[in-house]
């Protein structure tokens, strides 16, 4: 319990780490829900994602207020807050992407690749949770962050092929094209931000030593 030991966790600090864990677990559930809704083309299920985004906001507020109530040493607080903000940003992107999905229609030609990105987003998120747990245990994060980068690279490769593919799809009006473009951009940005968050975990880990 490296982090917990170093910081000799008080009740407030335990609440913060507990909520951070809850926040990331909620992110995994949200990615899973997004993937299922996309694969089943279930619009009602996709609407539920907006509720999860709200729940994430409430967890974020709770974590940040506890930190500024005095949890953790002052020099650590900005990094911890920044980390929580980055995680919350993933929820925002997931929410936006869900809305673009509800506004438009995914062309058949790119459905398979979109399902694959949603699946890999879930996998990268699960690895992110494992990385966070490793930080709390004081384990080395190098292998974990490398695994996250591998997933991110996979998604990046699919992104470039998706961008090529959508150029061939006939678009009837400006908004249809914009919504599709924004949907793909959102879908493929999620892993980028999770990678940023995992880099931040590494920074927090190093700053503890």
């Amino acid at each position, binding site marked *: 319990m490296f982090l917990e030991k170093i910081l000799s966790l008080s009740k407030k600090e335990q609440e913060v780490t507990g909520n951070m864990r809850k926040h990331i677990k909620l992110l995994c559930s949200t990615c899973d829900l997004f993937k299922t809704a996309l694969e089943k083309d279930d619009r009602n299920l996709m609407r539920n994602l907006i509720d999860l985004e709200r729940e994430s906001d409430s967890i974020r507020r709770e974590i940040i207020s506890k930190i500024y109530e005095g949890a953790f040493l002052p020099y650590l607080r900005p990094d911890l807050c920044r980390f929580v903000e980055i995680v919350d940003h993933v929820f925002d992107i997931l929410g936006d992407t869900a809305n673009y999905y509800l506004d438009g229609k995914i062309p058949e030609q790119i459905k398979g690749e979109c399902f694959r990105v949603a699946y890999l987003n879930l*996998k990268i998120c699960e*690895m992110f949770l494992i990385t966070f747990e490793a930080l709390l245990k004081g384990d080395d994060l190098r292998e974990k962050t490398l*695994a996250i980068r591998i*997933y991110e690279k*996979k998604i990046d490769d699919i992104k470039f092929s998706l961008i090529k593919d959508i150029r061939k799809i006939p678009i009837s009006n400006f908004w249809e094209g914009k919504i599709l473009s924004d949907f793909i951009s959102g879908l493929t940005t999620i892993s980028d931000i999770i990678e940023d968050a995992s880099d931040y975990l590494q920074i927090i880990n190093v700053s503890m030593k």
Partner: protein
Amino acid sequence: MKVQELMKTKIASVDADRSVYDAVEKMVDRRIRSLLVRFPGKDLNHGIITARDIVFKVLAKRLNPRDIKVSEIAAKPVVCFDKNADIAEAAALMEKKKIARVFVCEGEKIIGVISLIDIMAGALITRARGNHVS
């Protein structure tokens, strides 16, 4: 870890009746080392052509790649693996058959391809996961 997690789903291909020159052009342009060779009929009837095949069987022998059809030097049938198979099984099969890539199938349809680098990436991810079941 299942092969479907790391497979590539975009598979570059060439029709069996095209010339080796067409295959070379495509591979150099896209910087890839192999192409799926599409023969008429089911997916499992397809073949594969690699950079190694082209260099050893055509270019090194100073044959004109425009005069040789892809079907003449392609290896077939392709080696296929179920999408739910474990990545370690794929690695064992690649070692046994001395090949650098296996195709991933769903029934009789080819849905992806796994190469040596994907096997290595899979090994790193499995290690990073530790005891966590995904």
